[in-house]
């Protein structure tokens, strides 16, 4: 590779050359980085002058794999993007494909998707907020919230048979219908979550130690946040009420009324509070969707992409042929390009899909919110101390799978 461009470090050189700074290597296996990325902090005592990030430690070439896999196999990839809320990615991908194919889903599927996605958002925010607790030294709240997460896992397990990387969506709907057991479990979970959430909020939210730790820590202005491409809770914490669910409603989100929590100056406490409020909103959404869940089929009638029912495959030749065609990926896909965004756990999760009519996507680009906003980290922690840097990092909820793709 020819190297005819200078490698310039983004590190700001200190004005006074005599200034003596030490560097601290935060990561890649530092406990607070959770996922894997490296921050080389330039410190003066405990004050951070600057930081240089290195990422890519779990780069898995998602986009390259996606170019070699038929459409239905990409679900397994999307599950592993933001693994804290994998169903959102999963359904987001299917919505993208449906957009390309022009499939319109029924209300039941939409509502089922909303339930699943909001449950995923709950798990995502639960883990992020409890991890802020852990990084500020309060492990107990984390363990309380994780019990709730386990309940969501149980629900997923009932829906699709896996706990974390669910692979539950299909083009045109779901793999399986919600059984009565699932509905009951979701109801149970939603009805009981508030106790634990209240407990958790009581442990941290108005505790001065925690507030002192988080208020005015790692703040970012709305203007800078937009410039850095923030989306999701982190942007909302900065005071911009941008939410894909409201701005570009997908999957019948416009049927429901929910508020968009926003913060004031984008600091860690804002992010914490916004996520906490989003949990409450998600609970409301799931409840509403579950109450209004219409009857109907759990998948659309798209014989070209949704596998025919098994009993027909076993008995009818035509169904068997379609079955083979779909599994082997020999169905014609329209040529075109679409961009579809969903509100992921961390913000606008976009899929830019270019199709040339082949069995695989010609180009699939994931707009990973974590990847885009994590680059603002040095700016956010400049001038603060090490402890702040760590809380800022955990409150940004950078998921390595999403960061590195």
């Amino acid at each position, binding site marked *: 590779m020819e190297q005819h461009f200078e490698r310039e470090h983004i590190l700001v050189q200190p004005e006074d050359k005599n200034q003596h700074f030490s560097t601290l290597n935060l990561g890649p296996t530092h406990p607070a980085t959770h996922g894997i990325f490296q921050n080389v902090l330039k410190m003066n005592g405990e004050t951070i002058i600057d930081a240089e990030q290195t990422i890519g430690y*779990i780069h*898995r070439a998602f986009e390259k794999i996606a170019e070699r896999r038929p459409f239905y196999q990409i679900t397994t990839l999307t599950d592993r993007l933001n693994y804290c809320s994998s169903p959102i990615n999963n359904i987001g991908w299917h919505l993208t494909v449906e957009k390309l194919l022009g499939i319109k889903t029924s209300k039941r599927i939409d509502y089922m998707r909303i339930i699943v996605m909001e449950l995923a958002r709950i798990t995502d925010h639960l883990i992020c907020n409890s991890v802020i607790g852990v990084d500020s030294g309060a492990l107990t709240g984390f363990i309380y919230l994780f019990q709730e997460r386990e309940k969501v896992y149980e629900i997923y397990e009932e829906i699709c048979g896996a706990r974390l990387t669910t692979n539950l969506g299909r083009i045109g709907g779901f793999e399986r219908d919600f059984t009565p057991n699932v509905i009951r479990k979701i109801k149970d979970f939603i009805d009981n979550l508030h106790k634990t959430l209240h407990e958790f909020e009581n442990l941290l939210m108005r505790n001065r130690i925690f507030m002192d730790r988080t208020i005015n820590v790692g703040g970012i202005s709305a203007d800078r946040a937009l410039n850095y491409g923030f989306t999701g809770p982190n942007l909302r914490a900065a005071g911009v009420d941008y939410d894909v669910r409201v701005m570009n409603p997908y999957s019948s989100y416009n049927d429901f009324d929910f508020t968009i929590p926003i913060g004031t100056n984008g600091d860690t406490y804002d992010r914490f509070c916004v996520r906490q409020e989003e949990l409450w909103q998600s609970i409301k959404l799931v409840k509403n969707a579950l109450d209004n869940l219409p009857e109907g089929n759990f998948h659309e009638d798209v014989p070209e992409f949704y596998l025919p029912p098994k009993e027909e495959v076993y008995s009818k030749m035509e169904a068997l042929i379609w079955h083979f065609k779909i599994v082997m990926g020999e169905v014609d896909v329209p040529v075109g390009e679409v961009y579809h965004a969903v509100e992921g756990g961390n913000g606008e999760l976009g899929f830019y899909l270019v199709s040339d009519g082949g069995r695989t996507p010609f180009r699939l680009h994931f707009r990973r919110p974590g990847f885009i906003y994590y680059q603002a980290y040095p700016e956010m922690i400049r001038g603060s101390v090490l402890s702040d840097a760590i809380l800022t990092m955990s409150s940004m909820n950078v998921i390595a*799978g999403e960061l590195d793709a």
Partner: protein
Amino acid sequence: MPQYTQVAPPEGYSAPGFFATTLDQVVGLARKNSIWPLPFATSCCGIEFMATMGANYDLGRFGSERLSFSPRQADLLMVMGTIAKKMGPILHQIYEQMAEPRWVIAVGACASSGGIFDTYSVLQGIDKVVPVDVYVPGCPPRPEQIIDGFMKIQELVGNEPLRRRYSPEYRSLLEKYGIK
């Protein structure tokens, strides 16, 4: 309260007021009940590891709730999640930094073999970089599977003679991985 098996006393000579056993067994017993893991959690499996540490599964029952993020203090390196080629040298370094005796457990498909990520950037199994004692399949494995793998490690630890870490076989194994 459900019944659970306790660790049986080591086999040995026992008489009233007198109990003899080989040092190996006692130390093995102590070691296996006090495995401090170093969670090298990179991706999805790390979340399941959190679940394992959580209240429902509680790895702490085995005396392992003290996570030691410093490799010096850890006994068990739990590699959870994809290890990319960029990460390989770091993993190797972490393993080198650990004090003997040390064990490695590869949790999940990615760490064990690369899983679905058969790509140019992913290490096809961490056993290309460090010696692995136990593999745990699954993507991600259920906490039950992680505990299962952990108990396999316990079994290994409990039966390991003290001399093993000084044996030429072990040295040659390490040399294969380029560890002095």
